[in-house]
């Protein structure tokens, strides 16, 4: 697939509208610029987990955590995710993801031998270099196939 150019993720009201509808967000703050302004906001707000969607907008040559860490895709679980907001994300800005450090911990698991837990941090800044939010993503590599 082709990459977006210039790099960075334009926060567009059409994409927010589509994303918001896919998780059932009916609040006009996500769909109507006038309603957002009436609520004292500079513009349409992106839903809280919107940057999870923009993870798929990254260029094809962006660092691939799973590959870089030498993980086995068959045994990877998405353990969780945490979002820390300096402020809301608004339509009309452009966010740039900066990959921060990755912290590895090893834990004895109950279901599949020992687990390696990778917490990776991403900072999202806007076009003016302002930090908007930080995201911690947790990947778990199990010792074998996980049975539920």
């Amino acid at each position: 697939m082709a990459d977006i150019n210039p790099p960075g993720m334009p926060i567009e009201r059409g994409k927010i509208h589509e994303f918001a509808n896919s998780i059932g967000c009916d609040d006009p703050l996500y769909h109507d610029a006038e309603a957002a302004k009436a609520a004292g906001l500079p513009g349409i707000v992106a839903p809280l987990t919107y940057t999870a969607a923009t993870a798929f907008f990254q260029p094809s040559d962006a660092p691939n955590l799973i590959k870089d860490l030498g993980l086995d895709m068959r045994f990877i679980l998405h353990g969780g995710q945490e979002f820390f907001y300096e402020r809301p994300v608004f339509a009309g800005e452009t966010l740039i993801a900066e990959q921060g450090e990755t912290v590895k911990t090893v834990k004895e698991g109950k279901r599949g031998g020992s687990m390696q837990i990778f917490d990776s941090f991403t900072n999202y800044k806007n076009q003016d270099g302002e930090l908007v939010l930080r995201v911690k993503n947790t990947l778990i590599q199990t010792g074998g196939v996980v049975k539920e």
Partner: protein
Amino acid sequence: MSTDLFTSIKEGDEFAFTKKDFTRTDFARYAGGGGDFNPIHHDQTFAEKAGLPTVFGMGMLTAGILSRVPAEWFGAQNVKSFGIRFKTRLWPGDDVEFKGVVKKVYEEDGVTHADLDLTAINDKGEMLIQGFSTVRPWSA
């Protein structure tokens, strides 16, 4: 959903809604909205080859819906943090209750903050996601 809420909020306050009967169309709509086209979430043939009875929902779909608890309760702009841990999978046909409970109310730098415990629990009583959030009034 306004900042007035922060003056009356107290420990134990609750907010919840239920989404009934998740469908494969819900998963497909999130694939488009969120950009997750892993075939395990929309391709029955692929899911069966992976040894599963059918496709299952994206964790970030359930997480996105759970994020509406703090957002609809206190206003999206007033959410300071939102975190989730995935516990079990979302299957077609599941009814899921999304719920938040105020765990702690406190002042930080003269501003009222509240920590919330969040859960997404299916009709079999299984927890799909455990979540947590901190809210405080924010203005532009």
